């Protein structure tokens, strides 16, 4: 499938990428887990692999870390092909989904593990361990065992343990999974700031799109072993390359339509230009729709359901003639309490240019 467009503002084409994944494929028996995955990650960039469970995110990480060999394609770091480089010599640090801390080692010895394996002199190792623990605000926890730490503290040890070896590429596989929602939110912001301040080139795996939007410079949306689109969060959100991406990120409304004279007509009577022909699907985000009291216009409906999402209200509108339930997001209005369930309303698309058109 086509690679999502990467605008000039986003591609850091001036320097060559730190990590280059070129057409990586991986199969288990006859089952293809990764299919021709390509992705470049620039110096200091945080790229998120986002996709549903089982789409191959962990598999791709494991190939980069060297736990598994890719069947085809190449992985290069700083221009060096990793194919023949064993796991323990790759400049890659992994933060595991379950942290995989060594239960028999204290926090200090967990963090100092990589240095011990490299034979770094004790004094220097101690200094670097102390520095790493300070970075993740765990000073004072040196002599605890992992079992004596909370989930969030364990995660910070896992991060410090990897930071101390100064990897070229940092891989994080769903590092927030074990944390409760509130802590997750704070840790996301903290971790992003930490990675950014250290300038680490990172790949971050999640199947939580909010997490992806918080953490990433770029999001690579995966589907069944392929990367559908890799682009900055705004672009993924505003100009999803495929209907799948549009559906997966944020909420969306789809209508089938036909192209006539290079234009697709929208349900409210407006139209939008497209290069496609024949049958297509048109997508509009809920916040690109406007809900109003019934008025003259081709697009009428009735509020079927509504719910408050913070300062916004999401309406599900049953449209006349159409069988689709249309989602509309509007600001909550204090003065009139919005539209009650069952109210007749009319709909309008605010900016037709923001509607996307995909092959049917």
């Amino acid at each position, binding site marked *: 499938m086509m690679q999502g467009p990467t605008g000039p503002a986003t591609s850091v084409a001036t320097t060559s990428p730190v990590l280059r994944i070129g057409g990586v494929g991986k199969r288990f028996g006859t089952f293809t887990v990764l299919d021709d995955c390509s992705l470049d990650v620039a110096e200091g960039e945080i790229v998120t692999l986002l996709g549903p469970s089982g789409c191959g995110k962990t598999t791709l990480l494991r190939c980069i*870390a060297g*736990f598994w060999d890719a069947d085809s394609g190449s992985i290069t770091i700083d221009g060096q092909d990793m194919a023949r480089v*064993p*796991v*323990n*010599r*790759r400049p*890659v*640090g*992994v933060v*595991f989904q*379950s942290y*995989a*801390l*060594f*239960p*028999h*080692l*204290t926090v200090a010895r967990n963090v100092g*593990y*990589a240095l*011990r*394996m*490299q034979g770094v002199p004790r004094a220097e190792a101690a200094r670097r361990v102390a520095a790493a623990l300070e970075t993740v605000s765990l000073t004072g926890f040196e002599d605890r*065992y992992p*079992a*004596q730490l909370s989930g969030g503290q364990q995660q910070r040890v896992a991060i410090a*343990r*990897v930071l101390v*070896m100064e990897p070229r590429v940092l891989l994080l596989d769903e590092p927030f999974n074990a944390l409760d929602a509130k802590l997750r939110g704070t840790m996301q912001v903290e971790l992003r700031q930490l990675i950014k301040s250290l300038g680490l080139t990172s790949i971050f795996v999640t199947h939580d799109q909010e997490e992806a939007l918080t953490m990433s410079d770029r999001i690579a949306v995966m589907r069944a072993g392929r990367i559908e689109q890799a682009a900055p969060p705004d672009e993924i959100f505003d100009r999803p390359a495929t209907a799948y991406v549009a559906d997966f990120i944020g909420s969306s409304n789809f209508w089938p339509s036909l192209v006539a004279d290079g234009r697709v007509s929208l349900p409210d009577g407006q139209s939008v230009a497209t290069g496609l022909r024949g049958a297509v699907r048109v997508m509009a985000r809920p916040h690109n729709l406007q809900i109003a009291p019934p008025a003259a216009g081709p697009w009428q409906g009735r509020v079927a359901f509504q719910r408050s999402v913070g300062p916004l209200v999401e309406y599900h509108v049953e449209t006349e003639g159409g069988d689709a339930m249309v989602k509309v997001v509007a600001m909550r209005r204090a003065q009139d309490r919005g539209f009650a369930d069952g109210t007749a309303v009319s709909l309008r698309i605010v900016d037709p240019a923001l509607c996307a058109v995909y092959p049917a």
Partner: protein
Amino acid sequence: MAEASYTAPLATRGLGERLVDALLSGRGIWPAVPAIIVLTVVAVIPFVILLSLGFSDMEVSRGAIVSQTFSLQHLTNALTDPLYWTTFQRSMTLALTTTALCIFFGYPVAYLFLIGGRWTRRLILVLTIAPLLTSGIVRTYAWLVILGGRGVVNSTLMSLGLIDQPLRIMNTHWAVLIGMVQIHLPVMILPLIAVMSRHDGRLVEASANLGASRLGTLRTVILPLSVPGIGTGAALVFTLSYTTFVVPQLLGGGNYLNAATMIYEQVVYSLEWSKGSVSSMILMVTCLIVLVAIALVTNHFTRWTKGRDA
């Protein structure tokens, strides 16, 4: 307990019912009561009788004990008898060597189990458990066939021209040691495998990712985490081989005196029950000392499992 509300009120229940309840779900030592009764009858009482034999002077007339007075005479006799010292020393050396060799040969098997695929694991399990399904006596006799004068080892070495005369392996210290290690090896491997199969593969990956070689991972991650298995295995192998009777008796050709064979002779041949009793007690106490030592060492290396809730 939530179930408490479904059972009849205390007053209306019979004593038997309440007793069964206490035994099945009671607190404290109640659930252990049946086991305690059985052990008291079959182990504690005979043991007390045995001890009383060793710590008393008896007058026996027509096969019945006439009088019995407390005495440390048998114990002092034993402790000043050089034969006891050499015998127990031999037993101890043999048992410790066997334990060490079992760790040495058993650990690689367990490591193979850890890194091996499904079939390797099954094969190791079958090969470890199969010998346990046959009696120790049978397995010991098998060594007679292998190590004997015309046994497999000697005939092979002779047909290869490496030796002219059959080596005398049977009825030596070496035969006993070889037999002991082979017989007790499964008892070492099983606890090790139990530890290994609970092992978290991601720790091995994490250590490789952090730059450890295979040997480094083995030394710093796998080995320390399998200490409980080594401890259990060592305790079992030591106890079994320190107190073994069959192997030295058969492979030592009747002239290999260890603690168990000595007690056997004292009790069965020379009918000196008091001596036998004292020897048994020394055997048990020394065995316990070593077990405590093993437990302390194991504990020292598994400090990290303590204080989970600190």
